[in-house]
């Protein structure tokens, strides 16, 4: 079986992974990215609205500063933002976006050629830089180009199987080459998990098929904690039915949300910020309207009205979403409102890391020497309980860079790990027995069951009873997966059914953590809303949830306080 050796191995080639690789190349020559999809298919390329930085380039935003950005982010995060991490994020934002400008991101401009900025939810000033509504595409492609320029080794279509660890050191990773079906070992001096988000576990989701939280599951299986997983962001404007994202930029550019009476209902929920209130507030308002029968024709969607915007705004600043509305809802947004409903969008939680991206062993204190995480897979708690739009691309590139640097420095000091033949043989056996699965449960059907459970019982509104039910259903699906899975495709070559099965196994792993964390958190905060505990409880619950998998496979929960300080 094949083995590769690199100084630094980065798993995942979205914005965080690509940015980390660029930063790492300043310190080490031999950097590799492994990605289960071609890196240019990563979910980052679909990010639409923008990236936040307090440049103050527009007249309306000229008084902006990192402190205002900091305060907006803390306020949006509803009491769970770690202030030190948020300070790093907001202070560093201008530098992070100017680097992207140098790398050639096609940012939209003001008349005099400066980086233009537009309003976004929860940000009090226009702070979002944007490349029409293809901002993620522009950023990922520019970062990809830098990776080509710097000679980063990219292994496309390699699926992460496991971490190889000894004590508190990571030795490398195992993966399988999707094209050949062969198990491959990557030994490394340090490893970054930049494996992205996990909202494919939900039925209505804006995320692509690859956002299956593989890194989170592998962390859990290796005794590494995950943090704040109950905080799943639901985006207000998924296209009704499919959940495809209609960017918040549509509201940033002036779009309205209307109920069946044609009323801008946000005026009853947050009259100051209206449609640009933080996402958790907008989503709850929408769900309230739907539940009281004010969805369009009494159904479960509302209207996003852009008909009053100019053609120029629609086709120059919002071309992607205008096209999406046409292609997937048969709606011309200049003439007809777009049908929208809340859609699972982003995970505020993830693998807990230090400010340099070092993965934590426990709630406090000890960290791994050479294992790192970045991007949506990581939890720095810069978003707290509810992320503001445009802060995620910022987190991905800003902390991507920091983590890339730290991991490269660790690699320079460290020894290359050992990947044994036994490790590979064990994984090969695992794939072999999965391929031999000959029950009657199809991967697609089981995945749909999980997605329905998560959307219906662990969605915008939750309750103890529903979450208990969700936990039981997940156990049933797990059992079905273990005992009665069926694969049609028995071959090794480009077996996407096998890949889907591994992804489902991963989703079942972290879905339990989402449900568990949500069940224990008997309060409402940010994106986590309990109908049976509708109040926020700062006395008891201004804490981060840590979930670790114990020896017997049970999840153990513990908590740590939020880090607040004097900054800002």
């Amino acid at each position, binding site marked *: 079986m094949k083995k590769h050796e690199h100084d630094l191995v980065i798993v995942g080639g979205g914005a965080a992974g690509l940015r980390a690789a660029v930063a790492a190349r300043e310190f080490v020559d031999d950097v590799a990215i492994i990605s289960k999809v071609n890196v240019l*298919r990563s979910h980052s390329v*679909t990010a639409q609205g923008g990236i936040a930085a307090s440049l103050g380039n527009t007249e309306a935003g000229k008084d902006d500063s990192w402190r205002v950005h900091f305060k907006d982010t803390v306020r949006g995060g509803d009491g769970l933002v770690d202030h030190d991490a948020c300070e790093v994020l907001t202070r560093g934002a201008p530098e992070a976006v100017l680097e992207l400008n140098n790398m050639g991101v*096609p940012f*939209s401009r003001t008349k005099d050629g400066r980086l233009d900025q537009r309003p976004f939810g929860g940000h009090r000033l226009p702070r979002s830089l944007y490349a029409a509504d293809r901002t993620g595409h522009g950023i990922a492609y520019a970062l990809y*180009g830098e990776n080509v320029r710097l000679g980063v080794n990219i292994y496309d279509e390699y699926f992460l199987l496991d971490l190889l660890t000894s004590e508190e050191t990571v030795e490398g990773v195992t993966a399988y080459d999707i094209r050949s079906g062969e198990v491959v070992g990557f030994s490394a001096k340090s490893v970054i998990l930049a494996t992205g988000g996990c909202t494919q576990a939900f039925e209505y989701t804006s995320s692509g098929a690859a956002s299956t939280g593989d890194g989170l599951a592998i962390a859990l299986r290796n005794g590494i904690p995950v943090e704040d997983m109950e905080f799943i962001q639901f985006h207000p404007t998924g296209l009704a039915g499919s959940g495809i994202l209609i960017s918040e930029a549509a509201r940033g550019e002036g779009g309205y949300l209307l109920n069946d009476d044609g009323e801008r209902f946000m005026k009853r929920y947050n009259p100051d910020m209206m449609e640009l209130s933080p996402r958790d507030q907008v989503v709850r308002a929408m769900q309230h309207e739907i539940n009281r029968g004010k969805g369009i024709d009494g159904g479960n969607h509302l209207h996003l009205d852009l008909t009053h915007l100019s053609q120029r705004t629609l086709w120059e600043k919002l071309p992607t979403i205008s*096209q*999406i509305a046409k*292609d997937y809802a048969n709606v011309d947004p200049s003439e007809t409102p777009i049908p929208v409903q809340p859609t699972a969008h982003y995970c505020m939680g993830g693998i807990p890391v230090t400010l340099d991206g070092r993965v934590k062993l426990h709630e406090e204190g000890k960290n791994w020497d050479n294992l790192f995480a970045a991007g949506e897979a990581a939890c720095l708690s810069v978003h707290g309980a509810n992320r503001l739009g445009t802060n995620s691309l910022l987190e991905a590139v800003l902390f991507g860079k920091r983590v890339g640097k730290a991991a490269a420095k660790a690699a320079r000091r460290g020894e290359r790990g050992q990947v044994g033949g036994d490790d590979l043989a064990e994984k090969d056996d695992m794939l072999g027995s999965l391929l031999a699965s000959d029950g009657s449960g199809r991967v697609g059907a089981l995945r749909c069951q999980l997605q329905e459970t998560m959307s219906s019982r662990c969605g915008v509104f939750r309750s103890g009873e529903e979450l208990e039910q969700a936990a039981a259903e997940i156990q049933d699906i797990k059992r079905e997966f273990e005992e009665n899975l069926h694969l049609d495709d028995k071959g090794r*070559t480009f077996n996407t059914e096998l890949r889907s099965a591994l992804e489902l196994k991963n989703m079942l792993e972290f879905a339990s953590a989402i449900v568990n964390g949500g069940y224990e958190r008997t309060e409402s905060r940010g994106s986590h809303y309990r109908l049976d505990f509708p109040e926020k409880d700062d006395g008891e619950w201004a804490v981060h949830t840590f979930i670790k998998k114990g020896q017997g496979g049970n999840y153990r929960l513990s908590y740590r306080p939020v880090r607040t300080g004097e900054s800002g």
Partner: protein
Amino acid sequence: MMKKIAFRINRYDPESNEGSHFEKFYLDVSEQKLGELTVLDALRELKEERDGSLTFRHTCGHGSCGSCAMLINEKNRLACKTHVVDLEVDEGSFVEISPLPGFPVIKDLVVDDERFFDHDSQIMPFISGKNTVDDLEEERQTPGELDRIMEATECINCGACTSSCPTYWDNEDYLGPAALVRAFRWLEDSRNVDRNSRIGILDDEKDGVWGCNKVFNCVEACPKGIDTVAIIEELKRSVITA
């Protein structure tokens, strides 16, 4: 009312002796759902409910990532952006799906895109000749300068154009329309400093920009509506006046 949609899908499994062949599938779709059904939806349903070995790439599902380009009823398209109703299949006709032409096939609808991405790397898809990290002045770009490259920045590297190009079919070293559009995007970015190294690569009778014979297949194939030939013609002007 249910409608039966017929599919002919090109299958190929290198691990079997069967060789490349077409297989028929039928899908019952309600009239109500039919309007929304994309070719990707249909492929996913067939894979998940009928034959798990049916193999194709897909990721974002809404025309942004470029994973699912394939030959659908004789035209290169993204499966996720192609609605079955728009293919006007009636009784007795099929939705016929094959892998992108001109690329080696790995399995079923999955092609080997290594050479395609190798060409993309050859055109230097980055700002060249500038210190991109240390100089943190905000470099301006006028809306006009941005406009010049805007259309070319929309490329999603799906391969639909290059796969449709007869010149590429005859000469696999020809960079092809996607890489040339991408070359224009980086060459003509006002922030790019070094023009000569890239022009050196592009200025080649056979493999570079002069390989384009203006067949226009690529324009028709592009799912993003990029006028690839117009951009390649602009690129020829850039190269010849360099």
